[in-house]
């Protein structure tokens, strides 16, 4: 005898609306089904109705946390379409921008994860140290959250020399506290009791379900766009791709915390290696007919923008593939076999960004019922 427990659309463990149908047998979870589509905003369509320069700002608003990577992925695709080459200094500014965002996003996630397992003190401390990253974003790019250093054809603002010492101090603080947090998370017995061996995603499952980013790297999938398809200045910077083998929630915590240390190191190298020079190249108003893909390693995994231009100043089609969307299917093997008390932390462990994941729902106008489009139907539609 099994029961269906609905998690969401409104649930205390979820920050944003989604609907997870969990099938349980007593305390044990035997099946999981997902229903997305509560915060669909039609951004892909809206992007095709705006000039590139305006669409750039809209792309940033896809996600409140990874807006720098969204603008960078959009810019990367659009620059390839238009054939614009970004100046050297701007490439380094983009690296610093992206890595500061990764640091604050990972610390934000770690705080939420600590909250899900009831460790409020750790939650508060993570968010205290996240302030260092946010302050630096404000200092360098003008805003705490919706800040970006990228612009079409280069960087939006230059990094001033007088701000560098402050940035280096903040990095030292972040490095020190992150090392301490890694110690805490791998030695505190209550944290281990709640995280170790929970929500395991094996390497095989991670590959089959196309998991991305830290979720996949915690399962031992050694893949990182920054190294495997370098953009900005990542090909000139040395860094390690952090992987863990266990694939449980603890591994996902440790991967993200160790990535913060790598990010700190990347920013330090970028500061040292940053050349002088112009920060922006001219971006044409109209873009000739072309198509391109821009891939970026967002804090949650691989983010992909596909842009097709048609000779006007507006793109003809933009397609966004966010990392959270790629990670949702891996929820299933992580939850099945576990207990109900594990649901909040396991769902949180993929760092889901709900507004990023929402896509179109096909609803029959006559009956009002939503339905799933099969692969064959999609094939037929294409013809």
């Amino acid at each position, binding site marked *: 005898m099994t029961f269906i427990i609905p998690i969401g659309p409104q649930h*205390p463990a979820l920050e944003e609306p989604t609907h997870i149908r969990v099938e349980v047998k007593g305390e044990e979870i035997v099946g999981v089904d997902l229903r997305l589509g509560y915060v669909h905003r039609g951004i892909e369509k809206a992007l095709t109705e705006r000039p590139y320069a305006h669409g750039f700002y809209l792309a940033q608003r896809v996600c409140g946390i990874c807006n720098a990577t969204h603008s960078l992925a959009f810019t990367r695709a659009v620059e390839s379409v238009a054939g614009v080459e970004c100046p050297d200094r701007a490439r380094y500014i983009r690296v610093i921008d992206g890595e500061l965002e990764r640091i604050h996003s990972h610390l934000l996630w770690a705080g939420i994860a600590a909250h899900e397992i009831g460790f409020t003190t750790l939650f508060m401390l993570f968010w205290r140290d996240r302030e260092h990253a946010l302050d630096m974003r404000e200092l360098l790019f003008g805003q705490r959250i919706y800040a970006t250093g990228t612009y079409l054809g280069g960087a939006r603002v230059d990094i001033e020399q007088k701000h560098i010492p402050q940035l280096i101090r903040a990095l030292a603080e972040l490095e020190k506290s992150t090392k301490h947090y890694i110690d805490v998370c791998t030695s*505190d017995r209550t944290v281990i009791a709640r995280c170790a061996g929970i929500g395991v995603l094996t390497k095989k499952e991670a590959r089959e379900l196309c998991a991305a980013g830290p979720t996949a790297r915690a399962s031992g999938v050694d893949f990182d766009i920054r190294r495997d398809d370098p953009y900005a200045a990542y090909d000139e910077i040395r860094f390690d791709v952090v992987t863990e083998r266990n694939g449980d929630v603890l591994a996902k915590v440790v991967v993200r915390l160790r990535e913060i240390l790598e990010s700190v190191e990347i920013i330090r190298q970028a500061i040292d290696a940053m050349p002088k020079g112009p920060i922006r190249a001219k971006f044409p108003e109209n873009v000739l007919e072309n198509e391109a893909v821009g891939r970026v390693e967002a804090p949650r995994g691989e983010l992909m923008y596909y842009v097709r231009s048609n000779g006007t100043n507006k793109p003809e089609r933009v397609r966004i593939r966010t990392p959270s969307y790629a990670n949702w299917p891996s929820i299933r093997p992580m939850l099945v076999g576990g207990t109900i008390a594990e649901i909040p932390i396991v769902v949180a462990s993929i760092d889901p960004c709900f507004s990023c994941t929402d896509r179109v729902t096909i609803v029959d106008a006559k009956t009002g019922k939503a339905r799933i489009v099969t692969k064959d139907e999609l094939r037929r539609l294409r013809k």
Partner: protein
Amino acid sequence: MIETLGYIFAYFVFPGILFASAVGLLFMGIDRKITGHMQHRIGPPIWQEFLDVGKLFCKEDVTPAAANSFVFNFVPLLSFGALIAVVLLLPINSAQPVLTSVADLIVIIYLLNIPAVCMMLAGYASGCPFGTAGSARYVVQLFGYELAFVIAALAVAAKAGWSLSLSSIVAYQAQNGWMAFQVALIPAAIAILIAAQGKLLRVPFDIPEAESEIVHGPLTEYSGPKLAILRIAYDIELFVVAAVIVVLFFGGPVPHTIGGVYIPGVVGFLIKCFGIVVLSAVIRNIAARLRIDQALKFFWTFPTLLAAISLFLVMVV
């Protein structure tokens, strides 16, 4: 007549409703302030709990239709009343409590469980899945911590010559020193402090009201004055559980004379209670919440074993 007035005074003022509520709310306020500081926040002022409860009393009394039953409405008062009864049974100012019975300790252990039972009933009566889940977890947790708590208390009673009267336990400690410093009873003292953490639903044992999993457990559907009474009852419980531990292990109320000034026993008693509240606040800020099965396993192994060792040592040695 005088005796009746004395009882009325004891019930309503000292050490009854007024005193216990004031101390409980103040302890909770201090607890929240300590929590704030440990979490690198400023934290609310220490009288915040008074303001919160006062505000709740001013709110409209809303009861969801599904929850509107005698049990749901009566439970806050029952819980509050049981805890006031415990306060009257405790030797707070001198070794002699306001009320005495044949076996104080048994009555106190019994009365201390009434708030827990009340919460379970409230959860089941609230007609809310979070309340039901919270109650189910509470039942399991009750069986976990209660075993260690009772065995630790029994070890003390055995040490005091199988006396179940609190005044004789206090008198024993006045002669032989605190129970917590008797080698045989040190494990029991540790066990009862851990069990108290479970009894007070504090991290790592706040499982029945885990807010990220089941909102507020049995309290989810409560609001307004009923929630205010439950909040006061919880704050008094914080004080009362600390007080029971002080009476059993830390000497109870001892009057002092410092520099010719007579300091009544209640002052020292409150300071000791405060120490236990601070310890509990620190523990709740340095741990994550366990799962209910992990908590039960933990309670039935570590603290229960410690308490049993103490009982064994007291009885054999």
